């Protein structure tokens, strides 16, 4: 009886200790498998900016520069931006299984895939996942797997779809219409299933 009580107490202790770790695991940042790819990459871009760092960096964004002002507005409520981009000097430097392992982390009820593009012609695959909390966007993950480039973007925090469109339209890139995204997602996913 005593032994059983002790075992129960130990189990509770383990559960209590593991809770913060589980809570942290819910908030996906950079999967460890992605970090390993940098060893094989020709060029690696790593950007890790959590909340305080984002707020500090945004202080240096000029309000007079329209581009920087938009960026400041965009990142105002974000909790983090994590980017890993790997450029390889030859095709097939990473396996499909590695990318699939990456994608599988976002096949949970918290995440919904809004865009999934599979191009057999040039081998460019792009997935966009939204995290919704109370019908509001709480994060976005972009996984772009190209022949010689693999990019993982995780933006954590409340991000309005309009702001997302601005993000796509900045830096000389045409604006991404949110309506196009929602329309195209179903078509793209249909194409993916094939």
């Amino acid at each position, binding site marked *: 009886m005593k032994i059983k009580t002790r075992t129960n107490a130990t189990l509770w202790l383990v559960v209590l200790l593991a809770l913060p770790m589980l809570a942290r695991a819910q908030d996906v940042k950079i999967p460890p498998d992605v970090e390993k790819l940098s060893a094989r990459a020709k060029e690696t*871009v790593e*950007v890790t*900016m959590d909340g305080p*760092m*984002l707020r*500090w*960096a*945004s*202080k*240096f*964004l000029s309000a007079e520069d329209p581009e*920087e002002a938009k*960026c400041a507005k*965009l*990142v105002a409520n974000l909790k983090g*931006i994590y*980017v890993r*981009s790997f450029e390889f000097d030859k095709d097939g430097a990473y396996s499909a299984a590695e990318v699939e392992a990456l994608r599988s982390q976002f096949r949970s009820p918290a995440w919904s895939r809004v*865009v999934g*593009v599979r*191009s057999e012609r040039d081998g*460019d695959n*792009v997935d*966009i996942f939204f995290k919704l909390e109370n019908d509001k966007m709480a994060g976005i993950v*972009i996984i*772009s797997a190209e022949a010689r480039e693999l*990019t993982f*973007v995780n*933006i954590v925090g409340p991000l309005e779809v309009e702001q*997302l469109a601005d*993000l*796509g*339209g*900045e*830096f000389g*890139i*045409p604006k*991404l219409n949110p309506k*196009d*995204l929602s329309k*195209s997602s179903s*078509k*793209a996913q249909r*194409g993916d299933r094939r």
Partner: protein
Amino acid sequence: MTRMNMDKDDSRMDDALRNALRRQEAPDGFADRVLARVAQQNLAPNPVRHDSWLRFFTQPIVRWAALAAVAGAMILGVHVYQVRRERAEGEAAKQRLMLALRIAGTKLQLAKSKVNEMNANQTTNRHVKE
């Protein structure tokens, strides 16, 4: 020249020398005047020390003020250095942030172009079937 003449000349020279080198008493008050002059010279300030700018720092308040000024300048220098370093780090962080947004934007654009491509293909296929 005879010997008698020579002796007369010598005697005259001796008289002249004796007259020139005879003991004379100092004028009245000479010693007092000399002592007074010496005392006056001792009292007078050193002309070299009087002209030196370093003498300015011999006063304690000036010394403390100079020390405070040096310390203030050092603190200001460190502060300026820290502000500049913080600004440089902030600019670098801003560039990283812009880069991250640029990459995210580029990939969103890639997704959009692919989706548009697929839409265009589907529309073409539909028209062909019709």
